[in-house]
């Protein structure tokens, strides 16, 4: 179905006229949409960050296998080859204790604690082999396998932390979905009431349009635009609020002590996600409201 620009402009004007004519109701439904989307936005931020953090964690998931002291260079190479032959691993490398210390210094800075560790030039760290699994789910099995290999003193991996976080974020996502859905339905009904008023106000115009043979879509379009308009206007404030709050949270958290793994999602990518989904949801809620009232109250 092709719509002429002329007709499109007319429908948008009509939609705007509808909003103007019952300012109070329009304001009420714009506010309802705004509240809904604000809650939605906050949940969205939380959910996106959960995902982001767990993805980051997943990337860092690794098994650290300590090698018994006194193992020969050849035995270490043999061990490394054994591990690399395992189909569950993605990457395995030998990290001698000197390298380990260097990495530690890089990660934690040259703090007193690190200074103390190697004050006398000695190095208390063991030589290790670091192994990344292909799938983070396999980490436990892989670790148990490696532990049984000869010359391995112990294995170490972030037991369960990632799993729990992943579970939690999945759970939060479902909750967001449910909560968002309920709020969206409520807001849609408010919008449908606003549009019902517009339909009521235009009863005579609609009647004349029908009589002269306006197409059904020609009569319906302005109401869809009105709903979408309410949705769009209702999404502006929540988007701004959420992003400003997030900016504030970011500057507080990231300026303070940096806990390596708990870095929040950067502003730019998050704002695109949040603004995009919030706007989209606003439009969906608005159009849904229009559909409800057009179906119920617009007799064509």
């Amino acid at each position, binding site marked *: 179905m092709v719509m002429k620009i002329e007709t499109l402009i007319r429908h948008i004007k009509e939609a705007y006229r509808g909003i103007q004519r019952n300012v109070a109701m329009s304001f009420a439904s714009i506010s309802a949409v705004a509240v809904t989307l604000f809650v939605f936005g906050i949940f969205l931020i939380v959910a996106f960050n959960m995902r982001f953090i767990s993805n980051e964690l997943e990337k860092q998931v690794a098994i650290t296998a300590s090698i018994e002291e006194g193992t020969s260079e050849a035995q270490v190479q043999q061990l490394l080859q054994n591990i690399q032959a395992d189909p569950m691993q993605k990457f395995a490398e030998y990290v001698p204790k000197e390298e380990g210390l260097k990495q530690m210094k890089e990660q934690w800075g040259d703090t007193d604690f690190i200074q103390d560790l190697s004050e006398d030039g000695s190095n208390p760290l063991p030589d290790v082999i670091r192994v990344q699994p292909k799938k983070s789910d396999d980490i436990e099995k892989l670790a148990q396998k490696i532990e049984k290999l000869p010359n391995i003193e112990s294995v170490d991996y972030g037991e369960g932390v990632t799993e729990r976080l992943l579970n939690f974020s999945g759970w939060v996502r479902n909750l967001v979905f449910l909560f968002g859905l309920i709020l969206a339905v409520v807001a849609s009904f408010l919008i449908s009431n606003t549009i019902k008023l517009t339909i009521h106000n235009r009863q005579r115009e609609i009647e004349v349009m029908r009589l*002269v*043979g306006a197409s059904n879509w020609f009569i319906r379009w302005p109401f869809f635009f009105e709903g979408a308009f309410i949705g769009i206007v209702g999404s502006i404030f929540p988007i701004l609020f959420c992003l400003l709050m997030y900016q504030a949270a970011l500057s507080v958290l990231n300026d303070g002590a940096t806990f390596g793994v708990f870095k929040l999602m950067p502003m730019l990518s998050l704002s695109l996600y949040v603004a995009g989904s919030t706007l989209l949801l606003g439009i969906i809620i608005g159009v849904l409201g229009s559909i409800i009232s057009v179906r119920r109250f617009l007799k*064509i």
Partner: protein
Amino acid sequence: MIEMHDVWKVYPNGVEALRGIDVRIDQGEFVYIVGPSGAGKSSFIKLMYREEKPTHGVVLINGVNVKRVRDWKIPHVRRKIGVVFQDYKLLPKMTAYENVAFAMEAVEAPKRRIKPRVEEVLELVGLLDRKNAYPSQLSGGEQQRVSIARAIVNNPTFIIADEPTGNLDPENSWDIMYLLEEINKRGTTVVMATHNKEIVNTLRQRVIAIEQGVIVRDELGGEYGYED
């Protein structure tokens, strides 16, 4: 052409408004529908512009069965029909010009054609000089002329009017009748339900009389035939 074959209209409350109507109205005819109050004239008119569907029987508008036609096609059937009512149904917040132009905009007529065509029909109904007046600033007769201008602006093949002079004094009624006669002379079929004895008996045309949902008389150049 309008054809009805054994048409019944039974409203949901059980009232049988039309009971077995058979009629044929050809292109270019001028027809009065007469009959006592409650006889079924408005129901007959409503079937013609597809405001109501027949409960039983067939209504053909230019060969199209209005009962079978898909909902989205009904607007196209209606574009062939201009409707005029006793109460004008003008939009109060629009001027005479805008009311007429509205009918063209609603069928998505090209913008450049709207102004010349609207002015042409306003000229025809004799209201070009009042085109910027609002309905509240016009007399009943003038309002009815605007509504006729609106009905013909999209070049329908029929004009269907339900008591178009019902709210008007004799002088204004005659103006409306001369206008409808003029429109009919230009080739448009006119069907009007009326209670106006003087008009029917003076401006002789085909008369279809309905009583209790049945056509009791159908004659060319007939009389009104009732005392009211």
